[in-house]
C-alpha cells in the first residue's frame, strides 16, 4: 500500500484529496489528510461577514463531512516534515510516513510580523478580516461605529485574494451609505503597490471608481510600524496616515512548519515548478494552492484550476512518467464594487484581465471587467458552488486553462501602441 499524505484540509487539500480518491485505486493508495481541527471555512465569506451579509455558520462546514468518507482525516499540529526520511511528525509525537506528500496548508495573516500591530489598539481600533476571528470581531466593531477616519491597508504582497481589500473598501462605502452615515466617514486606501490598480486595462475599466466614491489612495506605502499612541500608520519613508479605525491586511505567510522543515522561502512558501507544482527540492513533494510560490493570485479559483491540471500530472508522476500538463496560472474572481454589483476578471500568467464575456464567448452570461448585478449574484451563488461542486471534486462546466475566446484582445494591441514615458 502506498501512502499519500496531504497537509491541510482547506480548499486545495480537500479538492486534491477528493479528486485523487476517484483516480487512485483504493487497494493501492491510502490517502491521509492532516489538519488542526474540523472547521473548514469558506474564506471568501470573510469579506462579507463584517457587513452582516453572511453569518459565521454560513462559512463553516465540517472537514470530515467535506472529505470523501474513505479519505483518512487526522487532527493534529504539524511539527516538522523530514523530507529525506519521507516522514511528517506532529507535535503530539505521532509520525506519518509517506510515499507522496502534498503541502496545502495555505497562508495566514500574521499581525505579529509588523511592529505595533498587536499593540494596545489591536482589536480596538486596529482590525483585520482575513481570519474567522478577525472578521467576526470587525462585524461587531462596525455595528455601532460612529464614523471618523477609516483606513484600509495592505501591509505587503502577496496576499490571499489580492482584490479583497479593494472590495472591502467598496462594500464599506455602500455599507455606510445605506446606514446614512457616509458623510461621517473619511476613507483612505493605503497600498504598497504603485496604485489601487496596477494592470492598465483593468485600471481603465475601474476608471475613477475610487474618486467617485470619495476614497483617497496612498500608494507606494511600505508600512514600517503602527504608532498606537498617535493611531497612525508610519511608512519607511516617514509618511504618516492617521486613523480612527484601521482595517489592515497583515503580512500573509505560509505555515511555520514549512520554514522549520527547510522547505520554504522567506515567507514560508514552498518553491515549486510553476507549471506542475512539484517541489523544486524533492520530487516526492507537491505544494498546492496558497502554500506554493507560483506567481499567480492566491485564490481559491487558482487552486481549483491548478488542481484539475495537477491531478493529470500526479497520475503520470507516480508511474514514473514525465508530467506533460502545464498549469497556466488561470484565475477568475468576482470583484464586489458595492451597491449590489460586481465585476468579473479572468486572467493567467501571461494575460492581464481583459473585458469580454465569460464563460461563453459573446454570450456570457457574465461580463468581464464590467459592473453588473449578474456578476454580484454569481459571487453570492459561488458559495453553493464551492461546497457542492468544487469541494466534492465534481467537474465545473468551465475549462481549467484560460481561453482568449470572448475576450477583447485588441485592447492589448492598442496598449502596445502607446508612447513610452521614461520615468519611474
Amino acid at each position, binding site marked *: 500500500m502506498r501512502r499519500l499524505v496531504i497537509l491541510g484540509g482547506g480548499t486545495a487539500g480537500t479538492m486534491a484529496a477528493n479528486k485523487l480518491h476517484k483516480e487512485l485505486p483504493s487497494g493501492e493508495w491510502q490517502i491521509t489528510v492532516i489538519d488542526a481541527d474540523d472547521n473548514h471555512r469558506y474564506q471568501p465569506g470573510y469579506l462579507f461577514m463584517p457587513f452582516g451579509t453572511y453569518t459565521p455558520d454560513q462559512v463553516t462546514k465540517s472537514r470530515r463531512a467535506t472529505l470523501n468518507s474513505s479519505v483518512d482525516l487526522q487532527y493534529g499540529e504539524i511539527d516538522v516534515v523530514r523530507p529525506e526520511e519521507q516522514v511528517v511528525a506532529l507535535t503530539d509525537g505521532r509520525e506519518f510516513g509517506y510515499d507522496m506528500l502534498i503541502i496545502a496548508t495555505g497562508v495566514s495573516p500574521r499581525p505579529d510580523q509588523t511592529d505595533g500591530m498587536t499593540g494596545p489598539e489591536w482589536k480596538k481600533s486596529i482590525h483585520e478580516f482575513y481570519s474567522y476571528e478577525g472578521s467576526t470581531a470587525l462585524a461587531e466593531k462596525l455595528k455601532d461605529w460612529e464614523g471618523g477616519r477609516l483606513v484600509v491597508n495592505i501591509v*505587503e*504582497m502577496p496576499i490571499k485574494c*489580492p*482584490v479583497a481589500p*479593494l472590495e472591502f473598501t467598496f462594500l464599506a462605502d455602500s455599507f455606510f451609505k445605506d446606514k446614512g452615515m457616509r458623510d461621517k466617514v473619511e476613507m483612505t486606501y493605503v*497600498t*504598497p*503597490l*504603485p496604485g489601487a*490598480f*496596477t*494592470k*492598465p486595462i*483593468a*485600471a481603465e475599466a*475601474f476608471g475613477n471608481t475610487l474618486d467617485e466614491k470619495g476614497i483617497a489612495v496612498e500608494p*507606494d506605502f*511600505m508600512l*514600517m510600524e503602527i504608532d498606537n499612541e498617535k493611531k497612525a500608520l508610519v511608512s*519607511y*519613508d516617514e509618511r504618516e496616515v492617521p486613523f480612527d479605525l484601521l482595517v489592515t491586511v497583515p503580512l500573509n505567510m505560509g505555515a511555520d512548519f514549512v520554514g522549520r522543515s527547510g522547505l520554504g*522561502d*522567506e*515567507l514560508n512558501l514552498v518553491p515549486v515548478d*510553476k507549471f506542475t507544482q512539484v517541489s523544486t527540492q524533492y520530487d516526492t513533494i507537491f505544494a498546492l494552492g496558497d502554500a506554493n*510560490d507560483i*506567481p499567480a*493570485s492566491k485564490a481559491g479559483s487558482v487552486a481549483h484550476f491548478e488542481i484539475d491540471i495537477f491531478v493529470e500530472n500526479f497520475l503520470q508522476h507516480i508511474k514514473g512518467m514525465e508530467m506533460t500538463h502545464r498549469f497556466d496560472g488561470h*484565475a477568475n*474572481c468576482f*470583484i464586489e464594487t458595492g451597491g449590489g454589483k460586481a465585476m468579473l*476578471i479572468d*486572467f493567467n500568467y501571461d494575460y492581464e*484581465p481583459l473585458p469580454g464575456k465569460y464563460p461563453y464567448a459573446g454570450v456570457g452570461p457574465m461580463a468581464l471587467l464590467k459592473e453588473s448585478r449578474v456578476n454580484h449574484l454569481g459571487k453570492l451563488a459561488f458559495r453553493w458552488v464551492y461546497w457542492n461542486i468544487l469541494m466534492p471534486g465534481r467537474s465545473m462546466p468551465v475549462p481549467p486553462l484560460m481561453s482568449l475566446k470572448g475576450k477583447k484582445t485588441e485592447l492589448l494591441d492598442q*496598449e*502596445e*501602441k*502607446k*508612447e*513610452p*514615458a*521614461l*520615468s*519611474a
Partner: protein
Amino acid sequence: MATTTINGKEVVVDDEGFMTEYDQWDKEIGSALATAIGVDMTDDHWKVIDFLREDFKVKGETPTIRRVSTAGGVDTKTLFQLFPKKPAKKMSYIAGLPKPHGCV
C-alpha cells in the same frame, strides 16, 4: 510595447518605461536608467541590482522588498536610503525588470 533608445541601444519598454526584455539589459543601460531617475549608483546600489537580476533569472519574477532584505541581505531601511521614496519601483526600473505587480 514600444521601443526606445537608452545609451545608444534600442530596447523594448512598457508604457511606463520599464524594460521588458531581460537580455537587452547591461550595466551601462542600468547606469543610464539610474541617472534618468536621479539615482547615483554606488557599490551598495549595484549589490541590490545584481541580486534582483540573479533572483529574477531563477524565480521568473521581480523580488519583493522583503525578499531583497531576507535573501539579498539589504534591509528595508537601507533600501529606502539607496532608492528614496519608491525603492521597489526604482530598483526594478534600474535592473530592467518588471515592476512589482498587483492583480487588477
